Structure formats: structure tokens, C-alpha cells
């Protein structure tokens, strides 16, 4: 494979899990709830998917389990911040620790276990197109699904009636309530759905990307997802692009290392975070409040 093809393929492989998680987080934050516990939801999904796959032999059952596990964990966050009015950042961080602990605890019998991984399904004909074929049409089902999902979520957020409701709640629960909506229900749904997608992201790692389980498998990808959401300005399509950039950086690093080119991988690893800060700064300079208005409250200590 050529350098470009390897990096592009790698970008998609490494970027998919983060893409699921950041798409989910886009939905949650659009409802005005930031969930710093994405990492925990990803881990929950990764382990639940792994266990169910190991026990049933079907990675598809695993995918369902991952979706449910991520969503359930996120519901804890929704309960605390929506119903109990707790601080979102503190609750989110605690959620990360909960996910970390729960998966370490329940996952210990599965370390070094073998599962039937979610295998790649090359699309007949298309995957044989030179260059594009292997990059785009030789992946596992979760990877195929994430791109239409990003498009669908974009449509959902910006074009559908429910999307208007979601954004309204994220801007102002008071106004949404006055318009006759039930902000709490919508926020619960958004946070749970966000967590469920993070769970799928985790499953993509444990069932396809590495197809193994180890403690702390996701290794900070949840936080990258949170950063990407801001980088993407709460737009699902831009989140997709951001995740691909991240995946590209990971793949580039691997390829450069394999070819013995001396770029410090650590400096490359900083770039997604620095880029996000620069984007935030640029928005702030333009005098625009980039955040969904409801999120602002969180950061002024009144959320």
C-alpha cells in the first residue's frame, strides 16, 4: 500500500471510535449538557460489547449491548445534572471514574480472552478500485455505519422538528419550557443517546480496531471526543471531519515511525488540543459566544 493510502485507511480506522463518541457528545451538548464522562461511556460500551460477544459469539449482540451500556451510564449523569441540578463538570468527571472502575472490575476475567471480532466486509467491486477501494470500502460494519450516521445527525439537528426542539432546549430551558416543551425529558434523551453512541465508539475499539479487552482500553479518546465537539462547533459533519483529522494524525505517526522519519509523536499528539484552543480563541475574538447558550451557564458556575 502506498503511503497516502495507508494513512487514509488508518485515519478511518483510528478515527471511527472517536467519531461515534463526538457525534454523541454533539447531541448531548446541543441539549445544553456537557458530559465529561464520555470516556467512561466508551469504556462501558467497549467492555459490555466485549463480554456479550465473548459469551454469545455474536459481535452484533455485542454492539447492541455496547449501545445500551453507554446509554445507561450516561443516564446517571443526566439524573444528577438534570433532575438534581448538580454541577455538570464534577458529575461528568465522576462518571469517567465510575466507568473506569466498573470496567476494570468487571473486565478482569476477559483480559487476554479471545473473541470473534467484528470482521471487515470488503464491498464487492468497489473495494477493488485502486486507491479509493481499500481506503473506503474495506471496513467493519460499525465503520461503514458512522458516515451515514453523521449525515443523518446533521439533518436531524438542523433540519428536523426534533432537532429544533433539541437546539431550543440547549439554548434556553426556560424559553423551551414556555414554548410548551419538556426540557428535562429532551435533555435526558440527548444525554442517554450521546452516551449510547460513545458506547458504540468503545465497541468499535474492543470488537474491531484492537479486538481485545484491557483496562482503560480507550486511553483518553473520550476527552478527545469532547475537544472535537468544541472544535467542530457542535456540527455533526464537522465533528466527522475532526475525528478523521485525529485519526489521520494517529495513522501518520504510525507510518512515519515505520519509515523511520524523526518527528516526535508526542508533539503530534498535542495538535488536536492546541487546534481546539486556537479555534476557541478565534471565536472569542470575533465576539461570538460559540457555545449553545445553555452551556454557558455551566461555565459561569451556575449550571
Amino acid at each position, binding site marked *: 500500500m502506498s503511503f497516502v493510502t495507508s494513512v487514509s485507511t488508518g485515519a478511518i480506522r483510528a478515527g471511527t471510535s472517536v467519531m461515534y463518541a463526538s457525534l454523541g457528545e454533539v447531541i448531548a451538548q446541543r441539549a445544553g449538557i456537557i458530559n*465529561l464522562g464520555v470516556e467512561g461511556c466508551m469504556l462501558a460500551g467497549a467492555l459490555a460489547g466485549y463480554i456479550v460477544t465473548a459469551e454469545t459469539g455474536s459481535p452484533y449482540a455485542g454492539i447492541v449491548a455496547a449501545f445500551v451500556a453507554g446509554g445507561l451510564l450516561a443516564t*446517571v449523569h443526566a*439524573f*444528577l445534572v*438534570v*433532575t*438534581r*441540578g*448538580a*454541577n455538570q*463538570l*464534577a*458529575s461528568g*468527571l*465522576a*462518571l*469517567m*471514574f*465510575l466507568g*473506569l*472502575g*466498573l470496567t*476494570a*472490575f*468487571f473486565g*478482569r476475567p476477559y483480559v487476554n480472552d479471545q473473541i470473534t471480532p467484528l470482521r471487515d466486509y470488503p464491498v464487492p467491486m468497489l473495494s477493488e478500485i485502486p486507491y479509493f477501494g481499500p481506503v473506503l470500502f474495506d471496513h467493519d460494519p460499525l465503520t461503514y455505519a458512522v458516515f451515514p450516521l453523521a449525515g443523518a445527525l446533521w439533518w436531524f439537528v438542523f433540519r428536523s422538528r426534533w432537532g429544533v426542539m433539541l437546539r431550543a432546549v440547549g439554548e434556553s*430551558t*426556560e424559553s423551551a*419550557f414556555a414554548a410548551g416543551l*419538556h*426540557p*428535562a425529558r429532551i*435533555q435526558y434523551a440527548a444525554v442517554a443517546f450521546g452516551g449510547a453512541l460513545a458506547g458504540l465508539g468503545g465497541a468499535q475499539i474492543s470488537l474491531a480496531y484492537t479486538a481485545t479487552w484491557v*483496562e*482503560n482500553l480507550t486511553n*483518553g479518546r473520550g*476527552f*478527545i471526543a*469532547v*475537544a472535537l465537539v*468544541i472544535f467542530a462547533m457542535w456540527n455533526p459533519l464537522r465533528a466527522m471531519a475532526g475525528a478523521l483529522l485525529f485519526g489521520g494524525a494517529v495513522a501518520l505517526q504510525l507510518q512515519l515511525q515505520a519509515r523511520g522519519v524523526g518527528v*516526535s509523536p*508526542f*508533539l503530534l*499528539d*498535542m495538535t488536536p*488540543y*492546541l487546534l*481546539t*484552543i486556537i479555534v*476557541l*480563541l478565534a471565536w*472569542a*475574538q470575533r465576539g461570538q459566544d460559540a*457555545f449553545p447558550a445553555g452551556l454557558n451557564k*455551566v*461555565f*459561569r*458556575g*451556575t449550571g
Partner: protein
Amino acid sequence: MTIAETVRTRIGAPAFGGPQLLGPFVRFGLAIGAAIAVFSVVLLLDGTNPLDTVQLMWDASVGTEFGRNEVLVKLIPFGLCALAVAVPARVGLINVGGEGQFYIGAWAAAGAILYSGAPGPALIPLALVAGALGGGAWAGIVALLRVKGGVNEAISSLLLNFVAIQFVNYFVYGPWKDPSGPNWPFSAKFPGSAMLPVVWGDRVTLAIVFVAVGLVAMFLVLRYTRIGYEARVVGGNPLAAERSGIPVARYLFLAMVVGGAIAGIAGMAEVTGIQGRLRPGISVNYGYIGFLAAWLGGHRPLGILLAALLFGAISVGGDSLQLGLDLPGSTVNILMALILFAVLAGRKNRTGVGA
């Protein structure tokens, strides 16, 4: 509110907010009880005996002198990292960047020790200053972004954590790698004169004094000085502070930098007290646990002390689970998270409309 109301004059609590001691204690107790109950259910689900587990954790942490000393060892990073969150919190800033400030403090201290060429007796003070400066400068980036650039400090400080970790990795895998050691990502070992003296038990270093000084200073400054009063005004209502002539931006900047410096000192204490060299992964989520401890303690000195001790005990108990029951050490993260959830859920918070 413009409705004509009757004026109430009641003999109230003494002014200048006396500490409300009992409430937090009761809340702490109930929360811990609830969290342990849920934790036990989790353990039972897996067929692990919760009584054995809790017993083991108790024995390993508070039950023995060795354990109690180990709790004090953990109190150093937890307490300092919680202070690093609480100081900015009192002026209304959210510092999620303790982890990164810890790393940069450790890096700066290591640099000062290994590369300054200073004589032995000067090393510890030098490392302390370097650690504080490093952590403070790292937080200073966040403060500048906030005060001059209008960038939210919670997000930028969180993002800079990951940058800091990679920054340290770059040095220990690259320029600072120990030339004489095996090919591991370690800096050279510090000379003995750079190591903090042990003041209690076998492993409790002088840094425990830093924690005590920090907590007492925070209490005294907030309660008895004009700076503390003005800081509380800034935290309570920045608009009112500005309109009564308090330089709000200066307070925001200083509080963030002081918070960063404290986290930097925690990093310095880790490398000069425990590790003896700079290496990757020196913080086991200390910055985040500090954040949770600060929230648990309500950003007040006494609360922070209790919360940091509690998390310290849980953390030490966790280490024993690994040896005694072959459970992963991070099992106790479940308990920490549950305690925080219980406290957060039990507090009287503003609930959203229609919730």
C-alpha cells in the same frame, strides 16, 4: 419581588458567616454510607464479598499505622490538587487543569534539579520555586486566554492537560532520557540532596507541611484579609465587584496562577518525594481526583482536608485490593465516583425548569 412586603427583623446567625460545621459532616456521613451500600451491590454482582473487601480496605488504610501513614502520603497530591481547584473556584473560575499543572510543575522541578548545576542544599528550595513557577505559568496560559482572550477556562485548562502530558513525554523519551540507564523513558535519577526529607513514618515527606500551610493559609486569607474578602466578592458577583472598584481581572488572573502554582508544587513533591526522577505517568489522575475532592469539600479548607483524606484512604485501600483479593486497583474508582454522586445528588441544587 416588587410586591409590597412586610419587613422582617429577626435575630439571625452571627454575621461574617460562621462555619456551618454540622451540616457537611452529616452530609458526608450519609453520602459515604449510601456510596458504600451501592458499591457493595456492585461487588456482590460479581460474587465478591463486600464485607471482606471493605474490611481489607479499612485494614490497609485506617486500620494500621502503616496504612494511616500511607493515607498521609496520598494526602499530599490529593490535598494540593484540591487546593489548586478550590483557590480559583473562590473567585468563580473552574480549574480542570490540575493534572497538567502537576505535570509541568514536576517537569520544571526536575529540570531545575538536573540541569541548574546548583549546589546540593539549594536543590530543594530551587525545585519548589521551579515547580510553583511551572504550574503557575501553565495556569497562566489559561488565565491569559480567559482574561485577555475571553476563552472559557474550564475547557482550555482541560485541553492543556493532554498537552502537558505529551510535553513531559517528549522530554523523558527525548532530550532528558537518562543516558546511563537502560533504554527506558526516565530522566536521570535525582541526587539524594534533592529528595524531600521524610518527616513522619517511612514515607511521609516534608510536603505534608505544604498541604497544611496551604489549607491554613487559604482559611486565614479568605476569612481575615481584605484580599480574601475581595476575592469572595469577585466569586460571588463579579459585576458588583467591578462596580465597587475591585480589579476583577487581576483577581481572576492571580487566583488561577496561584492554583496552578499549588498543583505545580504537588508535582514537585511527587518527583522529589516519591519518584526521584521524572517519568511518564507520574500522576495517577491526581489532578482529577483533586477536582472531585475540592467539589466534595465545597471548596472550603476543612472540607478539602476531609475529602482528600477520604479519597486518600480509598486509594490506599484500593492498592491493597490488588494484593489481597486480586482485584484491579481502579476498582475503588467506583467508590470515589459513587461518593461524589451521592454528595452531588444530596445537595440542594438549583433544579432546571420543568425537571
